[in-house]
């Protein structure tokens, strides 16, 4: 079973998830997305770790969702891609983690700007459903997410606890 | 075919263990079940997979041993050291090596 999760819970009828049995992918690869620049319809993009996110800059206002790929959970390139999309390109739309998405990386993904997650690992789905994330709310560095000042050194932050 | 045994490390404490004939894991290589035929090797491999799935052990490996009069002796030095422990006297007695001038 594959689900899409956000901080608000499991998403029903997500328009961008390719359900089992469906032939056509809903998200475009980067090269295809660049070709679609002429179209007016909103579209979704899925990037691979080696893609340069800056190439999306001219299309950002038309992109409905960007998915970044974790082909293996050890491949951390998408954390930097997410950071650049949010901080450098000012992307405000939905940013989804796809691929090998495991519970222990989700807090880091949230901090680097991801807001939705496609998950097929059962124990991860279980914990996400219970909203029991293993993150630490005290941060030693600023990241993309909105936080409170750490109230001491300039590099520290505290997570916004919104329940 | 060289005789084989199954070895792994216990999940809880990481200690090296070998699969015995009774299906239990022993900390002594000499207790290992000796797989001398294809069928036996297949059986220990299956047992290893199961033990991994049961979260009893990690890093499961089939290794080749030589049957000697002193018991099974792994062909690889690495496995011999795993079986016997560090080859050095690793807890030094204090004050046993005292500096002295010429």
């Amino acid at each position, binding site marked *: 079973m594959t689900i899409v999760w956000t901080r608000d819970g499991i998403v029903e009828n997500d328009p961008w998830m390719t359900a089992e049995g469906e032939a056509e992918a809903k998200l475009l690869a980067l090269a295809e997305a660049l070709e679609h620049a002429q179209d007016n319809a909103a579209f979704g993009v899925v990037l691979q770790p080696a893609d340069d996110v800056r190439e999306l800059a001219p299309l950002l206002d038309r992109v409905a969702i960007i998915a970044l790929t974790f082909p293996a959970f050890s491949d*951390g390139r998408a954390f*930097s891609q997410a950071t650049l999309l949010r901080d450098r390109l000012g992307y405000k739309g939905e940013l989804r983690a796809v691929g090998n998405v495991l519970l222990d990386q989700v807090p880091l993904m949230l901090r680097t700007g991801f807001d939705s997650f496609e998950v097929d690992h059962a124990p991860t789905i279980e914990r996400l459903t219970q909203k029991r994330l293993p993150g630490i709310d005290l941060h030693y560095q600023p990241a993309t997410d909105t936080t409170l000042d750490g109230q001491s050194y300039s590099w520290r932050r505290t997570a916004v606890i919104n329940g | 075919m060289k005789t084989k045994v199954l070895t792994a490390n216990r999940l809880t404490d990481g200690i090296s263990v070998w699969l015995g004939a009774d299906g239990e894991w022993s900390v002594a290589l000499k207790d290992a079940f000796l797989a001398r035929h294809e069928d036996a090797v297949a059986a220990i491999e299956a047992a290893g997979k199961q033990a991994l799935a049961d*979260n009893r052990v*990690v890093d499961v490996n089939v290794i080749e041993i030589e049957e000697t009069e002193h018991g099974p002796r792994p062909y690889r030095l690495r496995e011999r050291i795993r079986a016997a422990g560090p080859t050095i006297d690793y807890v*030094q007695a204090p004050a046993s090596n005292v500096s002295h001038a*010429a």
Partner: protein
Amino acid sequence: MYRYDEFDHAFVAARVDQFRDQVERRLTGEISEDAFKPLRLMNGVYLQLHAYMLRVAVPYGTLNARQMRKLAHIARVYDRGYGHFTTRQNIQYNWPKLSDMPAILNELAEVEMHAIQTSGNCIRNVTADHFAGAAADEVADPRPYAEILRQWSSVHPEFSFLPRKFKIAVTASERDRAAIQVHDIGLQLKKDDQGRLGFAVWIGGGQGRTPILAKKIRDFLPEADLLSFTTAIMRVYNLHGRRDNKYKARIKILVHETGVEQLSREIEAEWAHLKDGELKLPEADIAAINAYFAPPEFGSRAEGWGELAAWKKSDPGFADWVGRNVAPHRHPDYAMVTISLKPIGGIPGDATAEQMDAVARLAEEFGHDEIRVTHEQNLVLPHVALADLEPLYRALLADGLATANSGLITDIIACPGLDYCALANARSIPVAQEISNRFGDPARQAEIGDLKIKISGCINACGHHHVGHIGILGVEKKGAELYQISLGGSADENASIGQITGRGFEPDQITDAIETIVDTYLAERTGPEEAFIECYRRIGADPFKAALYNSEAAAA
């Protein structure tokens, strides 16, 4: 030294809880070993040949007596009564249980210690000059910056799944005692011509399969830009470092394959976006961290001068030890003392719980409660009054910690090797022991002079053999151990990678081979004032190769 504030305590406590949860999920099988492995590595837990291994961080090699006592306690209660100090200034335990890890980490947290990021593909312990804060030749103490980097790199969400491990070292003098040129990032604290503090920045150094010296990419980076510039380096590395081949994944390969000019341009381009942002370090923050590293009150202890002279005269053993293991401090009445963890015939870098307790006690009594771990696997008391050297020596003698061999041939650096390590191809400790015993005679050692032997049991080079004056690499050939020798490596400011001499040596030949090399040096040197490394650089490898290989043919 740095003291945890409420934030630090809360963070480490949360981290322990997080890991406890992860261990529980592993033990019940909720997460597989594959998924658990990177998590346990980021908490310093390895699986070795015989058991798990826990690597505890000693940030920039600094600890106090209370912490050392805790390390002794952990050795005693959770392990087999000893620990091993490493070439990255950390400590390793060889027999802890996974099920005990949360308890061990709790105990460490009580004394402001942890095992966070001592392994895994993340930013590791930031190491520093072990004489920081005491050496006369430093521009300023580099450790506050190591502390800032340590904090900032802790559970960094963007940089926790790098292509490979990442190691940073900091020094603050022209003399490099932290081996910065063989680190992924090397930093040298310096002043510009207006007296402002900043760093020379090197990237892409490393050992392992492909030893490479770092390339300097910045002559002067103002101190306020430390975090933003490091972020730029890390981001470029994270995005472009190779992910297809574990042995080509360090930043040194990226530098080599991209070219340092090109890579430097990419880093500068990224940094341009970051330099005036939230990562810029306010002066007040630097000053606040600096304040933790204010040196202790060094009262005048001028009586030490006369006392020292008298003791040396009456006790040749003491004189020997002072000559080798005691170095001048920036305060004239004090000294920096090296506590050798290399007893003749002993296991390099190992200390028993009793010895750790002894060092803790002596640090309190004679050392202003400060201890250092060196990347050469010894301990240091950086602030000892000359007047206290003799009672300190007596106490060290009683605990087997007074071997007068700092920097000598028996001050060997050796990784744990095949006796412990799952990655090893050959044993290193028995080789170190045999060499140490062969050359143990103090007169012989004195005659040979400064000579660093570094031994690794596999190509990962944790024993730093590439930068040994004599390096020894254990390999496996046809199922047996074989030892390759390299010559002329150096980890100081005149860094160099050693050159392999030729065919390797079997375990029963390696010590003779070392003796041949030493004899060649003694025969060829201009005099005792020409150290081994200088002699090698003058005469080259050929005389050594001839002695090693031609004479064998002749003797056969």
